[in-house]
């Protein structure tokens, strides 16, 4: 982590904050999207998460990595969005949504294929969501951003060995959970 940038960001320097957090913007958006399932909501939540992070950077104590800290903020913001959406949806019906022109998206696959695909992904995502935040962050950077182990280690300020072992543990955990379903 760039200590100088962090110090400047803590003083309220927006440019320093952007330089510091830009490598993790996809991570933040992706996690919001996984939780909210809606690109528009995810974008809004990710933006809100970044703003919250900027406001709270002064209290960032470096007990965790910056990526994990941002991931947690994105998670909390997404939870807030879900609560709001739940309150909004109370009383709403599918018929009412269709009256407003809403149609569920279709990808052309047969209902059976779609069922299998979605149920498999849902199970995997469910399993991922039970992992510790750091492991989720590592998985997201590895498979979402396509970063190498070295790049992840550099981005998160961890050693290469730590990254490798944490990812291996995460995958082993996932495999065990998915097979158990």
């Amino acid at each position, binding site marked *: 982590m760039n200590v100088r940038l962090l110090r400047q960001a803590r003083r*309220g320097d927006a*440019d320093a904050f952007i330089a510091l957090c830009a490598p993790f913007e*996809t991570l933040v958006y*992706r996690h919001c999207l*996984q939780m909210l399932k809606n690109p528009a909501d995810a*974008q809004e939540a990710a933006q809100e998460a970044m703003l919250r992070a900027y406001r709270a950077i002064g209290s960032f104590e470096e007990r965790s990595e910056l990526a994990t800290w941002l991931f947690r903020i994105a998670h909390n913001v997404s939870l807030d969005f879900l609560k709001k959406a739940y309150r909004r949806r109370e009383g709403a019906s599918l018929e009412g949504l269709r009256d407003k022109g809403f149609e569920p998206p279709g990808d052309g696959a047969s209902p059976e294929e779609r069922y299998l695909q979605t149920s498999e992904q849902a199970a995997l995502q469910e399993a991922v969501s039970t992992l510790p935040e750091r492991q989720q962050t590592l998985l997201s950077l590895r498979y979402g951003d396509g970063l190498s182990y070295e790049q992840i280690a550099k981005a998160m300020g961890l050693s290469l060995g730590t990254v490798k072992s944490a990812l291996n543990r995460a995958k082993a955990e996932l*495999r065990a959970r998915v*097979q158990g379903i």
Partner: protein
Amino acid sequence: MKKIASDDALDRALTDLYQTDLPAGYQAAWRDAVKREEPTPMKPSPSLTWLRRAALPMAAALVLIVGTLITGALNPQTTTTLQAADTSEEAPAGAVFGIATNTADSGMERTADAVYAAVPAPEYDDELSSSMAKGTVVTAEDAEEETGSKIVRTVSLTLSTTDFDPDYDAVLALAESAGGYASSINLYDRQTGKRTASFTLRIPAEALDGFLTDLETVCRITERCETADDYTTQYSDTELRLQTQRDKLSRLQELMAQAETVEDLLQIESEIADTQYWIDSLESSLRGIDRQVDYATVSVYLQEQQAIDTAVTEDLSLGARIRYGLEATATWLGRFFENMLVFLVAAAPVLVPLILLIVVVRIIRKRRKSNNKAKS
């Protein structure tokens, strides 16, 4: 679920799961939002800016002024100390007393020699001690009749003068003419116009009043403190104790004449030695009191003052007072700048590197600022 049992399958499934396309505008949107949130940098208020800019010069001025004042206060002083050993018993009349001179200037030393050489040393016709030496018995009543009341007079004077050198000499001359002598002289030559001298004079008791009257004609006495301590009772008691010890000594001497064994002789000799010690000590006390009674101690503190300080300003015209005031200010300013020059030269080994350090630090900070601006 068996599909993702292998590593490759799990990797593929995770890649699918995390497959995400960032929506257009997301990156710009959150950046803009953060930038909008950025607080506008607080411009320091003009007064604060002024204060910050003035801080360094003010600190420098403060150091300069304080340093100058300290330099003035620490101005190396020429101190002359002349110490006359108050061993009147040993000093023959007319002898030059022992003189210890520190940082003596030649003039001072010459004056002191002249004074001490001219002043006769006090003579103590101590019949008491001579009679004791002869072994004559002197009763307490006899001693009191001889010595009368024992009053020790001590006077402390502070004199102010505008003509330091003549008055300095006059004080010593008066002491000489009164039959006294100076037991110590300290001359503090701090700076022109502020010299001081302190004298410890021993003046014959009978000539003390005349000496003080004469002194008033020479200088302005600003402070005067006089004490008279009665040592009569103490003197009588000491004499009685002395007599007792002498009686004891006589008896011991008689006993020694009659002693038959060596042990007795040794014991009596030891007792005689102790008794003789006490006799010597008591005799010394009596002589000390005699000296103090015969010669009053006069402590004189002579201060040189500027003319304006001692001038009777109420008798002067307004113009003259203003002129005196301006002259005093000009003198003070001249001395202040002299001290400042001394301070600057003396502190140069510290000040020059310090100033260079400050300049270098400021240049580095300026460069860093301009670099940061260029980068941003």
